[in-house]
C-alpha cells in the first residue's frame, strides 16, 4: 500500500517535473515558461517528500519558489525581453543532439553501475534536527562549507548591488 | 540637519492612542437617514417653494426675476379689478434655488421651502401646479429672506456638535401666515446677529 502510493506519487511528480521542464525550454512565451518553472520546482519538492527529505522539500519551496522564481519573474518584467519571445540560437540542433547523447550515455552508465546495496526499509524520520546538527558538527560536520556558503551569499549580495547600482 | 530630539515611534503611538480613544469614547455621528433626519438650516433654500395664494397679486415679478424662466403664470382680471393667477406653475427640475423670486416678491407671497428631497419618478411631477404650491403638511416656508418665519423655525442640528437628534424628525406645522405678522419688504432687514448654530 505504502509502496503503491509512493510509486503513483513518483510517476506523477516525475511526469510533472519533466513536462514542465520541457515546457520551460520549448515554450516561446517567457512568462509562461517562468510559471512552469515554478511548477517544476514544486514537483521536485514533491519528489523530495517521497524521498523522506521533508526539511529540504520546504526549503525547496521557500528558496526556489519564494525567492529564485520570483526574482526570475522580476527579471522578466524589468527587461522587456518577453515581448520578443524566447528564440532558439544557431546551435539548437547541435545542443539537442549533445543533450540526447549525454542522456543516453548517462542512462547507460547508470544501468551499468553496480550501485551499493540499497536499503529502503529505513524509517522516515524528521530530518530537520539531524541536518542542523550535522551542518554545525565540529568534528565530522560541515562547519567550514557552511561558513563558506555564508561568505558566498554575502559576496553575491554585494556583487549584485554593485552590478546593478546606477552611476 | 535632522532634528536631534526626534524620536520615531512617538508619533505613531500618539496616533494609535487617538484612534483607540475615538473607537471607545466618541459617539457615532452617522445619521440613519430615512429614520433619522437632521433639522435643516432655518434659512435653507429648499426645493419646495411655497406660494401664498391670498397674498399673491399675480404681478408676475417672480416670473420676471427668475433667471431660468421656471415660473409660469397666467392671470385673469377679477371683477374688482384685481388680478388672480389662474395658472401658477414652478418647474423645480430646472430651478437652481437662487431665491431671486423670493427676494423680488413685493408682497411676501412666495417663499423658499424647507425640503431637500426632490427625487421623483418622472420629470413631469417636478412641475408643481398652484394647488400643490400652497403650504401644507411638510411644505412649509423657510426663513430665507423671511425673518418673520425664521423666528418660529426649530434651530438647525449639526453633526459635528453631536446634534443628531432622534426627537426632531418631521418638521413642525407651518407657522401662521397672517398678513399682520408679515412685515413689508421695505422694512425688512437682515437680523443683526447671526443665528447661533443650533446645539441640542
Amino acid at each position, binding site marked *: 500500500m505504502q509502496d503503491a502510493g509512493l510509486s503513483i506519487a513518483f510517476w506523477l511528480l516525475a511526469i510533472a517535473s519533466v513536462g514542465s521542464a520541457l515546457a520551460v525550454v520549448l515554450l516561446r512565451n517567457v512568462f509562461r515558461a517562468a510559471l512552469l518553472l*515554478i511548477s517544476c520546482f514544486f514537483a521536485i519538492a514533491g519528489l523530495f517528500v517521497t524521498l523522506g527529505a*521533508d526539511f529540504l522539500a*520546504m526549503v525547496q519551496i521557500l528558496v526556489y*519558489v519564494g525567492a529564485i522564481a*520570483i526574482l526570475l519573474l522580476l527579471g522578466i518584467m*524589468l527587461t522587456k525581453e518577453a515581448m520578443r519571445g524566447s528564440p532558439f540560437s544557431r546551435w539548437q540542433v547541435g545542443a539537442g543532439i549533445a543533450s540526447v547523447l549525454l542522456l543516453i550515455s548517462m542512462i547507460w552508465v547508470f544501468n551499468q553501475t553496480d550501485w551499493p546495496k540499497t536499503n529502503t526499509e529505513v524509517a522516515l524520520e524528521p530530518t530537520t534536527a539531524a541536518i542542523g546538527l550535522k551542518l554545525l558538527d565540529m568534528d565530522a560536520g560541515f562547519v567550514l562549507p557552511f561558513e563558506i556558503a555564508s561568505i558566498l551569499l554575502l559576496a553575491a549580495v554585494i556583487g549584485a548591488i554593485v552590478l546593478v547600482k546606477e552611476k | 540637519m535632522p532634528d536631534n530630539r526626534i*524620536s520615531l515611534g512617538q508619533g505613531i503611538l500618539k*496616533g494609535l492612542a487617538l*484612534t483607540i480613544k475615538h473607537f471607545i469614547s466618541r459617539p457615532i455621528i*452617522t445619521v440613519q437617514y430615512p429614520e433619522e433626519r437632521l433639522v435643516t438650516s432655518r434659512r435653507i433654500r429648499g426645493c419646495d417653494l411655497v406660494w401664498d395664494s391670498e397674498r399673491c397679486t399675480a404681478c408676475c415679478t417672480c416670473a420676471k426675476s427668475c433667471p431660468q424662466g421656471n415660473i409660469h403664470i397666467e392671470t385673469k382680471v377679477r371683477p374688482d379689478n384685481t388680478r388672480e393667477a389662474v395658472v401658477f406653475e414652478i418647474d423645480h427640475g430646472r430651478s437652481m434655488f437662487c431665491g431671486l423670486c423670493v427676494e423680488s416678491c413685493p408682497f411676501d407671497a412666495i417663499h423658499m421651502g424647507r425640503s431637500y428631497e426632490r427625487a421623483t419618478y418622472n420629470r413631469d411631477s417636478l412641475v408643481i401646479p398652484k394647488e400643490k404650491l400652497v403650504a401644507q403638511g411638510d411644505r412649509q416656508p423657510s426663513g430665507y429672506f423671511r425673518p418673520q418665519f425664521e423666528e418660529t423655525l426649530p434651530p438647525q442640528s449639526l453633526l459635528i456638535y453631536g446634534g443628531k437628534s432622534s426627537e426632531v424628525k418631521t418638521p413642525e406645522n407651518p407657522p401662521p401666515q397672517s398678513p399682520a405678522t408679515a412685515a413689508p419688504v421695505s422694512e425688512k432687514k437682515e437680523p443683526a446677529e447671526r443665528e447661533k448654530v443650533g446645539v441640542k
Partner: protein
Amino acid sequence: MDWLHWIIYVVIILAFVLTLVMSFILIERRVVGRFQLRLGPNRVGPQGILQPVADAVKILLKEDIIPSKVDRVVHLLAPIVTFAPAVLIFAVIPFQQAGNGLFFDLKSTASMVDLDVGVLFIFAISSISVVGLVMAGWASNNKYALLGAMRTIAQMVSYEIPMVLAVLGIVLIAGSLSLADIVDKQNIPFILLQPLGFFIYFLGATAEMNRSPFDLLEAESEIVAGVNIEYSGMKFAMFFLGEYAYALAVSTITSVLFLGGAKFPWGLLPQSFIWLLVKILLVFFVILWIRSTLPRVRVDQLMGFAWKFLLPLSLINLFLVAAEGMLPSGFTWPIVALNVTLAVALVVIWANRFYRVGGAKVA
C-alpha cells in the same frame, strides 16, 4: 479511519476559514467604521450580519469580464493561486493541544497534520501567493496591474526575510519547527519573551498580507487598484477573499506562535479552541487599529524600511535570543523584563539612527 480524519479536517478547516473570512469582512467594516465615528453596514439582517452574504450574492451575479489580449489561462488561474495557499496554511495550525480541554479532551493535537517542519511549511506556502499576484499583474495586460505586481514582488521578497528571521527566535526558544510543540512550550506567551521578534514579525506580516499601511499593492490613488484592476465578478471575489484569508492566516499564526495558541495565559483555565478564536480576533483588531491610524507608506520608504530597519533589528534579535539560550533556565521573569527593555530601547535607538542616516530613502 485515516480517511475519516482527513475528511473531517478538510470540512473543519473549510468551515473555519470561510465563516471567519466572511465575518472578518463584516468585522473590518464595522470596526473601521467605529474608528471613523461611523456605523458601518447595519442594514442587512440584525446589526448587518448578513452583509457579507449580500455582498457575495451581488458579486456572484456580476458580469465576468475578461479583457481582450490577456493571457487567458494565466488570467484565470491567478485568483486561485492567490487564494489556495491561504487555506493550505491552516493544514498545520493546531486548533487545540492534546490533553485536557475546556469542553472535551483530545488524545492528539487537533490539527490536520502536525508537520515537523510546520513553521517552514507556513512560510513556504505563504510565499506562493506572490506568484498568484504576479500572474494577475502580468496577465491582465494593464500597466497599473503590472506596476502593482512589481511592487508586490519587491515588497514581499523584502519583508519575508525579517519576518522569517523574527520567527526563528521563536523556533530557537521552542527548539522545534512543529507548531504543536511551539504551543506546548509556551508556558508564558512568547510575545513576552520575544517582544522585538513580535514587533518585527507583525510589521513584516502586515506587509506580507498587503494591509495598510503597507498596502501599496493596491494603492487606489496611485495605481488604481493594483493587480486586481482587470478582475471582476467571481475572480475578483477570489482576490478579495484571499486578502481576508491572509489576514485570518496571519492572525492565526501570530496567535499560535506568539500568544500561546489554544492555551489560556499561564494555564489559568483549561485550553480550548475558544481562546485561539479570541486571540485571532484580538490580533485582527490590532491590525484594524493600525489600519485606521497610519497612512500608507510611500513606495520609496517601503524598501528602505525593510532592509535598513527591520532586517538589522531582526538579526540583533536573533543574536539576543541565541545569547539568552546560553543562560541557565529559571530566569524567566528577569529575561522578560530584559527583553522588553531591550526591545523598546533598540527600536527607539534604531529608529533614531534610521532617521539620521536619511530615513527610508533609497538612493
